[in-house]
């Protein structure tokens, strides 16, 4: 065991030894230290408080809407604040003793009231008695407009909005909006990103009334906007006439008038080495983000490149992880040590949001969003795997494979969306396009053995391919709705409807070449050596989708009559898909040494799908509510849908000329029960039944046989029928609705079956070759369940805990034929885990997680032979900010994986970093990171499907050290 020092926080007097499973000692150190930090801040035995009453000086009434705040004289920092009760009485506590303080009371329309005071040990309670406030009037006695109050009022009501004045809260000069929100009474920022106010989730955080940077991710705004640019944080309560306790919350960040334009960003570069020994590889990381905004437009650009498996799929992910606040305890944008190979991504993107009309107009939105993202990745992967297939009770076919491949992908994605909403209609127009280019080079070899025989065949192959796929989609959705204010007669025919159309055009072109060698130890006459070229593997497709919905069918037919309160809706969708494929294949003739066309695999075909689904929907909602007590509803929805499906395939390969038409009744239904007991809890139960048909493809019905591959011979089945899937889902959700320490439970069960499941029936020959027939079979069933429990506990303002437990269970019956024997594979999986999060303000954050997974596949046709595997992990993440600009971060994950009767594989991944912020506004950062310190990372594959178990290793990213420099350019206002 090593005694590691550099991660030990300053002030921790205990030397901390870390062994794989002895994380608790390490964690205890931090808790001990953080406890000391907290203890230094406040001592509850040495505080006092002040009381009083606030009254209007002239009109003889108590000012219950005043704000009462206490500040420290020396630096005017806010100590505490409160609002008076309905009697005008207030108490402000706890307040420090022997510290000069002043009381400020403010109220809209009144002159502020100031009182200086000092609490001592002998006089720790001060009663100001009745305090009179004077209205702001001119010399003639007329009320003045509200003046800018010099004292910074922390909180006040402005109409129906609760406003927090950012300037009233003294924070570090580099604090962000998120830091401010943590300090505001009632706000809680959870580890999963949710923000609650008095226990109630805030639905969205807007900036100047609009989504910020075109994203719904709250952290983009809260972690980048500096507290100094904020004027107010507003909390809106959406009205509920029945119960003032119940409402929907939104938060809005208002910027100072001169800070409504600005930019912020991050530029960083890092260089490192794969390990500290000779022959090491170089590692690099580069990230850039620049975002700007003004009153009407917001634009963000991102770019990143590295060779350490840090991948992001969209602009949001890069934006989120370039925040001024830093990554904190998030693992989202870290090197992905589970990924196969060492990836070298280069990514970049742009997003734009522009608003054409001012916010505040009722139901008025006119907004344009556009974005572009490009992602280039290259990786070298080396795989080693063992695949075991149980083909009779006593016979296992094992294939040991090794492969190395180089994969390069270039993906581009662009989209634009315009949204216009007004009182009577809403319109959404969008267009997007993608271009994906993939290049692949692969080299592999495998040896297959059979129980009782030994090696039956060997295979080696070399291949190279290149493919470009382009896709363009455009569409619109238009809804007409009834006006929202009174006075509209409902005697007319209802004119609400929704109509939508999407067109998708795809273009695919590719080329490849390969060389395969097959060697059969017992049947050498079957040996093959095939060199193949795909001159083209092209495809073009066009898809049209239409949908129309008329929600007021009941009113159209029955007028305003009740009809038992049942609503009726008519809708229809139509999909037309046409796909042209062209493959041109040539194989090397070993005699002439020329490449000759492979007539078996060369083809041109046209595939057409027509899918029409009219749907009739009945729904009814029963509602019962009692003001101030509860709110319940029970709803039933039934959809009767008939699917008309037509498929046709015309090919130069005659066996692939086929077509079929089916009409399938695909109903679905759901019931939902919701019960909200005000001030206590909210519970929801839902049960829904869904059906769908899955139709056989031409490759299942009439596949083209590659005569050069004797190990796999597909036979197809032109009589294949569609499979019909039905499932029933039950969900349960419970949330407490008390202001503090909420907890919630989510659980669900899914039960389903597939009638006529399309599966393969396999016949194995003595040399390991497999002939596959596709068949329909009944008996496929599945049952899945899961439960998730989450609890938050705020001990006080500084210390918060979160606890979570999850469990999932899956069971499935998967019947198919193997060598003529019906074998039902019964697959069981169980998993779960728990997590504990602790946070002490911005100083310490600690996460502990434990996860487990068990898999078991039993072959009922083969004397219940089993494949088993299990895996588990234990993880601890610690972040400590001490002293002020220095952040210590460490995360350690212990993994254990077992397959079948093999030995367990254990490995521990430990990452640590030290980050220092410097320059005037913490705009520069230097970071030293050490990843996979113990150099144990392994890429493990461990799966079971039916009668096949797969266990293998891949090359993965391992240990590296890196030094990164970053600069955060930012300016708010002119």
């Amino acid at each position, binding site marked *: 065991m090593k005694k590691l020092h550099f991660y030990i926080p300053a002030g921790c007097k205990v030397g901390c030894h870390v062994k794989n499973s002895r994380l608790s000692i390490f964690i205890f150190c931090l808790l001990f230290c953080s406890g000391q930090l907290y203890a230094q801040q406040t001592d509850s035995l040495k505080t006092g408080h002040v009381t009083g009453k606030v009254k209007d000086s002239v009109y003889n009434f*108590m000012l219950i809407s005043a704000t009462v705040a206490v500040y420290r004289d020396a630096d005017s920092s806010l100590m505490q604040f409160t609002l008076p009760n309905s009697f005008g009485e207030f108490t402000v506590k706890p307040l420090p003793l022997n510290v000069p303080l002043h009381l400020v009371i403010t109220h809209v329309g009144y002159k502020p009231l100031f009182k200086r005071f000092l609490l001592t040990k002998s006089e720790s309670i001060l009663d100001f008695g009745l305090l009179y406030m004077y209205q702001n009037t001119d010399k003639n006695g007329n009320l003045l407009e509200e003046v800018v109050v010099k004292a910074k009022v922390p909180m006040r009501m402005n*109409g129906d909005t609760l406003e927090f004045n950012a300037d009233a809260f003294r924070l570090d000069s580099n604090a962000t909006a998120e830091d401010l929100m943590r300090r505001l009474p009632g706000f809680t920022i959870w580890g999963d990103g949710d923000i609650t106010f008095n226990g109630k989730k805030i639905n969205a955080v807007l900036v100047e009334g609009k989504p910020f940077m075109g994203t719904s991710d709250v952290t983009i705004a809260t972690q980048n906007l500096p507290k100094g640019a904020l004027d107010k944080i507003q909390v809106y309560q959406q009205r509920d006439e029945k119960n003032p306790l119940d409402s929907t919350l939104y938060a809005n960040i208002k910027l100072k008038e001169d800070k409504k334009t600005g930019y912020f960003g991050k530029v960083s570069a890092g260089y490192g080495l794969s390990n500290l020994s000779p022959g090491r590889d170089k590692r690099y990381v580069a990230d850039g983000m620049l975002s700007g905004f003004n009153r009407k437009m917001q634009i963000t650009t991102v770019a990143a490149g590295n060779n350490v498996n840090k991948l992001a799929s969209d602009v949001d992910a890069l934006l989120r992880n370039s925040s001024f606040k830093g990554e904190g305890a998030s693992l989202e944008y870290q090197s992905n040590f589970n990924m196969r190979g060492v990836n070298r991504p280069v990514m970049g993107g742009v997003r734009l949001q522009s608003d054409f009309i001012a916010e505040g107009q009722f139901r008025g939105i006119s907004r344009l969003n556009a974005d572009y993202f490009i992602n280039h990745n290259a990786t070298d992967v080396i795989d080693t795997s063992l695949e075991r297939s149980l083909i009779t009770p006593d016979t296992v076919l094992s294939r040991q494979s090794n492969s190395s491949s180089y994969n390069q992908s270039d993906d581009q994605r662009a989209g634009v969306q315009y949204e216009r909403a007004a009182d009577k209609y809403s319109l959404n127009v969008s267009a997007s396009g993608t271009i994906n280019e993939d290049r692949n080079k692969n080299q592999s070899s495998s040896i297959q053995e059979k129980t009782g025989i030994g090696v039956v065949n060997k295979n080696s192959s070399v291949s190279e391919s290149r493919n470009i796929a382009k896709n363009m989609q455009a569409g619109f959705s238009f809804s007409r709705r009834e006006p929202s204010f009174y006075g509209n007669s409902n005697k007319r025919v209802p004119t609400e409807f929704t109509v939508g159309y999407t067109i998708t055009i795809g273009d695919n072109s590719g080329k490849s070449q390969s060389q395969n060698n097959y060697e059969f130890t017992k049947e050498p006459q079957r040996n093959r050596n095939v060199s193949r070229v795909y001159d083209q593997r092209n495809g073009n497709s066009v898809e049209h989708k239409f949908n129309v919905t008329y929600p007021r069918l009941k009113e159209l037919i029955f007028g305003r009559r009740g009809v038992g309160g049942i609503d009726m809706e008519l809708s229809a969708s139509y999909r037309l898909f046409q796909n042209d494929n062209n493959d041109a294949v040539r194989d090397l003739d070993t005699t002439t040494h020329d490449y000759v066309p492979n007539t078996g695999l060369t083809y041109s075909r046209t595939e057409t799908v027509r899918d029409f689904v009219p749907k009739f929907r009945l729904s009814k909602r029963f509602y019962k509510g009692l003001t101030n007590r509860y709110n319940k509803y029970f709803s039933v929805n039934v959809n009767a849908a008939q699917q008309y499906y037509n498929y046709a395939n015309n090919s130069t390969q005659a066996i692939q000329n086929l077509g079929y038409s089916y009409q399938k009744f695909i109903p679905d239904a759901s019931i939902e029960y919701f019960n909200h007991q005000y001030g206590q809890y909210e519970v929801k139960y839902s049960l829904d039944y869904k059906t769908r048909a899955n139709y056989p493809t031409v490759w299942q019905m009439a596949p083209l046989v590659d005569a050069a591959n004797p190990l796999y011979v597909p036979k197809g089945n032109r009589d294949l029928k569609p499979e019909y899937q039905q499932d029933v889902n039950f969900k349960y959700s419970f949330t407490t609705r008390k202001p503090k320490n909420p907890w919630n439970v989510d659980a669900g069960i899914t039960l389903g079956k597939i009638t006529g499941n399309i599966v393969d029936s396999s016949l194995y020959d003595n040399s390991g070759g497999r002939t596959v027939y596709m068949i329909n079979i009944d008996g496929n069933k599945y049952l899945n369940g899961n439960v998730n429990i989450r609890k938050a506990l705020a001990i006080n303002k500084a210390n918060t805990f979160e606890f979570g437990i999850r469990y999932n269970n899956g069971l499935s019956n998967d019947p198919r034929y193997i060598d003529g024997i019906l074998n039902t594979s019964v697959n069981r999986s169980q998993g779960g885990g728990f997590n504990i999060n602790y946070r002490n303000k911005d100083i310490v954050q600690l996460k502990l997680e434990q996860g487990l997974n068990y898999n078991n596949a039993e072959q009922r046709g083969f004397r219940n032979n089993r494949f088993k595997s299990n895996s588990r992990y234990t993880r601890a993440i610690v972040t400590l900010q001490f002293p002020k600009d220095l952040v210590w971060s460490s995360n350690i994950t212990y993994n254990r994986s077992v397959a079948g009767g093999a030995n367990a594989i254990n490995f521990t991944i430990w990452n640590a970093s030290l980050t220092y912020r410097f320059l005037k506004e913490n705009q520069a950062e230097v970071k030293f990171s050490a990843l996979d310190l113990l150099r144990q990372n392994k890429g493990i594959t461990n799966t079971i499907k039916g009668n096949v178990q797969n266990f293998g290793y891949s090359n993965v990213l391992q240990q590296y050290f890196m030094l990164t420099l970053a600069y955060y350019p930012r300016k708010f206002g002119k």
Partner: protein
Amino acid sequence: MKVISSQICGCIICIILFFETNAQVIEKLRINPAISYGGNASEYIKTIEYIPLETTKESLFGAVSEMLITDSSFIISDLDTKALLFFTRSGRFLQKIKGKIVYPSAWLDKKSNTILVCNTFPLTDPHSIPCIRYSLSGKKLQSLSLTRNELDLIRGIDLGNEYTVTRTNYDLPVDGKIKDTTLFLISTYKGGSLYKRIFPFNTLEHQLFFKQNRSLNIGSMSENGSVYVVTPFDHFLYKVSKDKVTPMYQFVFPANRTLPRGIIESKDSRVIDSVQKILAHDQNIIVNVKNIIFNGKKMYFNAGVSVYPYSDLGSGGSNQFNFIYDLNSGKLTSFERFTPDSTTCYLPFTSLRSRYWGMDYFDGFFYTNISSLNIFAAKGATKSKNPNYPPVLQEYFNTQNSRSNPVIVKMKLKE
């Protein structure tokens, strides 16, 4: 002689001018809710009584939507349970009426001293409105059909001497466009026959009124053969007798609490539509003054907005709605600025409903109602004040909880 004649003529002219001028000048009452007086409850309330409404499985209801007070009962309309509930004046449960009534409304038929419950929403046939007659304790007496006129008569206000005053409802045309016509907003009846139609209003000149309100609020009681009505938006107070309409005062509110004259008198339908949208969300604009009660030199009234004040926070808490105006001194006092004290056992006595709908008045007492949720919350917050609860409240707190039925508050104000 000539001199005397000319002097007499001059006097006559002056006298005529004097009365002419007086006939045209309506006294303006400048009401600024923001500078209304308040004080402890005991300074204004002479007596206060909390009457818990009995809570049983059958009598449990949501909230008081409308309340009818008779000599022997409270009749409460609840939209949550869609029921009418009868309680005695001491809060004991008598009867619950549920049925096919969509929007339960009840009226006291003074002639027969019975309660009439009619299904008026939606009004499918104005010549045959299904109704049921009940006793004051909720016993069903008969089912009957009434015409709209007959129902209006019953809903009208008794002026005495067989005269009844009713209001006229304006039916907005299907296409939403107001046609040029003159509508008499008040009708008086003698016996069952129409006596007179008074208070003419041209529909085109008062489009906002006819689109937003459609009728006048004539209150719930008469005084010395008259009722008091206030026109919405411009807030003219009239005394209406069987024969005539006499202007009394005009309430003038601060500019930020009222609509400009140009808007009120606008004939542009786009402007009116726009104003209606604003009013649907604005909690500050006073749209109608109602519940006018004169008591000696004092006038009581409610200044209503068009948006229900959903919470105590914001305008619902900072605006004032129910007022006492001293006609002699001009002093304005607001109920919302009274502070609970030992007289009220430190319990609240106004609610969100009383702000929006005003307080009920019967036989010299004001009535409001408070939810048990609020009463129990107030009880919990005022333990340190050691309130001295009367036996009724002690029993209530011992046997009930925050989910029980609301509590009626009955107040008599000091002269």
